[in-house]
C-alpha cells in the first residue's frame, strides 16, 4: 500500500489540471518524481511542488495499491481522478470540475462540494461527494448519447441541473434535493433522490428508473400514470412504502419508470398542475 499525501502550499487563481496525477500514472513515483513534475496551469506548466508538498509512504505495484490524500483548498484543481482505473483518492475540501470523470475503477471521496461534471461518463468505481454538486453530475460528454455506464455516485447534499443526463448504467444517489431535468435522456440505470425535485425529471428518457422520495414540483406531460405501487423493487433494491409510478417519456416511446413517494406527493394526484415558484428554481438550489 502506498499513501501519497498532497498538502497545499498555495492556491492558484487559474485551475491546476490533475488529469496526469492519477493512481494509474503515479503509483511508482517517488518524491523525487513529484519534485520534477510540472503541473499544467492554463497554457503553461509549473512545478507541482510550488503548489503542493507531496509526501510518499510505502510501495505500490499497481494503481489499486495507491491512496492519494489531497489537503487544502481544491476549488481550483480540476480533473482529480479523471480516467483513473483503480486506487483511492480522498479530497479534504471542495473540488473543481470533472472530479472522477471517465473513471473506470477505484474510489474517490470528496469531503466538500464538487463543481460541475462530477463523475462524467464514469464506467465503474465509486464516487462519493459529501457536499453538493453542480450541473451534469454523472452526465455525458456533450453530444455523446452514452453517459455514465457503470459505477456509483453518492451525493450527500444537493445536485444541480441535469443530474444523470444520458445515464446509461450505474447508479446516482442524491441525498439532498435535485434541480430540474434530472435523468434527462437517460436510457438505463437508477437515479435515487432523497429530497425534493423542482421540475421535469426524466425528460425524454427512454428507459431506466428514477426514484424520488421527496416532493416533486412539476412533471412532464410525456409521463403516463400507472398507479400506486407498494414496496417497488428496482434493480434488486426494494424501496419500502407507497409510490406513485409513471412511465415515460412518451415522446420517445419511453419505457422509463418514475417512482414518486406517495406520502410526500399527496396532493399530486389531486391538484396536479399547480405551479411552483420560479424563484425557487433559479436561486434556491443554487446556493443551498
Amino acid at each position, binding site marked *: 500500500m502506498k499513501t501519497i499525501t498532497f498538502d497545499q502550499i498555495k492556491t492558484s*487563481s*487559474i*485551475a491546476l*489540471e490533475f488529469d*496526469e496525477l492519477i493512481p494509474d500514472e503515479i503509483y511508482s513515483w517517488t518524491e523525487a518524481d513529484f519534485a520534477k513534475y510540472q503541473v*499544467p*496551469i*492554463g*497554457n*503553461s*506548466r509549473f512545478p507541482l511542488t510550488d503548489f503542493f508538498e507531496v509526501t510518499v509512504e510505502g510501495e505500490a505495484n499497481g494503481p489499486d495499491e495507491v491512496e492519494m490524500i489531497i489537503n487544502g483548498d481544491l476549488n*481550483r484543481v*480540476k480533473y482529480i481522478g479523471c480516467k483513473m482505473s483503480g486506487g483511492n483518492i480522498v479530497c479534504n475540501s471542495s473540488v473543481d*470540475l*470533472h472530479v472522477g470523470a471517465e473513471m473506470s475503477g477505484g474510489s474517490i471521496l470528496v469531503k466538500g462540494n464538487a*463543481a*460541475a*461534471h462530477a463523475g462524467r461518463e464514469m464506467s465503474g468505481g465509486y464516487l462519493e461527494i459529501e457536499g453538493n454538486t*453542480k*450541473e*451534469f453530475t454523472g452526465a455525458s*460528454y*456533450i*453530444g455523446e*448519447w452514452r453517459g455514465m455506464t457503470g459505477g456509483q455516485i453518492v451525493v450527500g447534499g444537493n445536485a444541480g*441541473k*441535469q443530474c444523470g443526463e444520458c445515464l446509461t448504467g450505474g447508479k446516482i444517489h442524491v441525498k439532498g434535493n435535485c434541480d*430540474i*431535468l434530472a435523468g*434527462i*435522456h437517460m436510457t438505463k440505470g437508477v437515479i435515487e433522490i432523497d429530497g425534493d425535485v423542482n*421540475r*421535469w425529471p426524466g*425528460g*425524454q428518457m427512454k428507459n431506466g428508473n428514477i426514484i424520488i422520495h421527496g416532493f416533486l414540483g*412539476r412533471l*412532464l*406531460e*410525456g409521463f*403516463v*400514470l400507472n398507479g400506486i405501487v407498494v414496496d417497488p423493487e428496482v434493480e434488486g433494491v426494494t424501496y419500502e412504502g407507497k409510490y406513485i409510478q409513471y412511465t415515460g*417519456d*412518451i*415522446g*420517445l*416511446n419511453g419505457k422509463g419508470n418514475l417512482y414518486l413517494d406517495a406520502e410526500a406527493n399527496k396532493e399530486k394526484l389531486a391538484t*396536479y*398542475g399547480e*405551479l411552483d415558484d*420560479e424563484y425557487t*428554481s*433559479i436561486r434556491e438550489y443554487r446556493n443551498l
Partner: protein
Amino acid sequence: MTYEPPVTDYDHIVENCTCAFCGCNCDDLDYLVKDGHVVAVRHACRLGASKIMEDMDQRLIVPMIRDENGELKEVDWDTALDKAAEYIANSIRPVFYGWSETSTETMKEGVALGEYIGAVLDNQATICHGPSLQAVQNAGYPIQTLGEVQNRADMIAYSGSNAMNSHPRHMARYAVFCRGYFRQRGRFDRTVVTMDPKFSDTAKCSDKWIGFEQNGDYGFYNAIRAVLRGKELYQDVISGIPKEDIYELAEEMKNAEFGVLFFGLGLTHTLSKQRNIDIAIKMVQDLNKYSKWGLTPMRGHFNVNGFNIFMAFECGFAFGVDYCRGYPRYMMGETNTIDLLVRKEPDCFMVIAADPGAHFPNGANQHLADIPVIQIDIHWGPSTELADVVLPGSFIGVECAGTSYRMDGVPIFMKKAIDKPETCRDDEWIVRELKERVMKLREEPNTAPKYVPNPNAL
C-alpha cells in the same frame, strides 16, 4: 417620426452589398456614396441602415493605450501592437472573444494565434445561441436554406424570437411575406405562429400567438410531443396554455406541407436553456413523420454562424475552444468565456469585433476590471471603457471585403464599397501583426509535453 425626402445628393451607387448586421446577411443593399462616405442605403432595414451609416463621432480611428492616469492616449500602431502582444505573450490563460462581426479571413489569423499561444477562442454564440449548438449536438440539426423556406414553406413558427425587432427583413425577404415558387401569393399562402411569452411585434403580425408562460418552454414542447404520439393530456393547462390549444396547434403542424421553426434567444436564455431547444428539435424530428419540417436558429450577428462553421472545420468544435494544452478542448462550463470570467481565471482578454461591456452580465465583466483588455473594434463602445489597448479595425462589408456565413450556412462574400479611414487597419492585418509579434516574444510556446491520445481512436 417625420417624413424624410430621399437622398439625391450622392456621387455613385455601389450595388448588391451585403448587410453587416444580423444573420440574415441581406446581400441586395445599395450604398449611396458621397465623398467616400455612405450617405444612404437602399433596401436595408432600420438596423442595417443604422449600422452602415455609422456615427462617426464614436468611430475609433487611432490606436490608444491606457496611461497611468487611467485615460486613453492615442499612440502609433507599433506602440499599440507591441503593448497588446506583450499582454498576450505574458499571459497564462488568455481568452480571445468576439469574431462574430469580422470575416473568416480574420478568424484564420486568430486561430493561428490562439493555437500558438494556447488561448481560449470563443464567440458571441457563447452568450446567445451556444445552448442551441449544444442542443444540436444532443438532438440533431434539421436545417434548410432560407430559399427553401421562401419557395416551399406554408407554416412558419417563430419561437422565442422577435424577428420584427432583431431581424427586421427576415419575414419580408425570406420567410413570410415573400413570394416563393410554390407559394405564389406570399403571405396569404402561409400560416405564421409566434410562440413567445411576450405579445411581441412579431406576434402582432402572426396568425396565432402562443403566449406560454416564462420558463415553461420545456413543458410546453414536451406536451406537443406527447400529443404527436397520440397521448391524451391530463393537465388542463400546460405552461400557461390550455390543452385544447395544444391539440389544435399540433394538428396544424402535422398538416402543414412544409413547416419551419425559427427560434431565438427566448429559448436559450430561460430556465432549461439548451434543453428547450433540444426538445424543440425532437419535436421537429417527430413532425417529419407527418410532413416536412425544419428549423433554423435566428443567429444574431452577421458572422456568428461563420465562426462556428469556421472553428468546426479548423478544429472540430464550434465555439469555446480551449487550446491551452496544445490540442483543442471543448467543454461546457469550463472553456466558455462567461464561465471563465465568473471563475476569474483569464489573465488577458482580447475582444475582437464584439462588445462584452454591452452584453456580459456584471458578474462576468467584473473580472475584466482586474485584467488587461485588448479591444479591436470600429466604435467606441461600453467595452472601450474597460479596454487597456484599443486597436481600430475596419468595417467588413463596407470598408473591407471578407467572407461571412448566413444563419443557414450559406457563405456570402461581402465586398468592399468605400475606403477605410487612413489610420485604421483591416482586422485581418491587425491579428496577423499581433500573431507575428507574439511569436517573436514567445519563441517556443510553453505547452504540455505529454498527451496520450485516445488509443481507441486511430
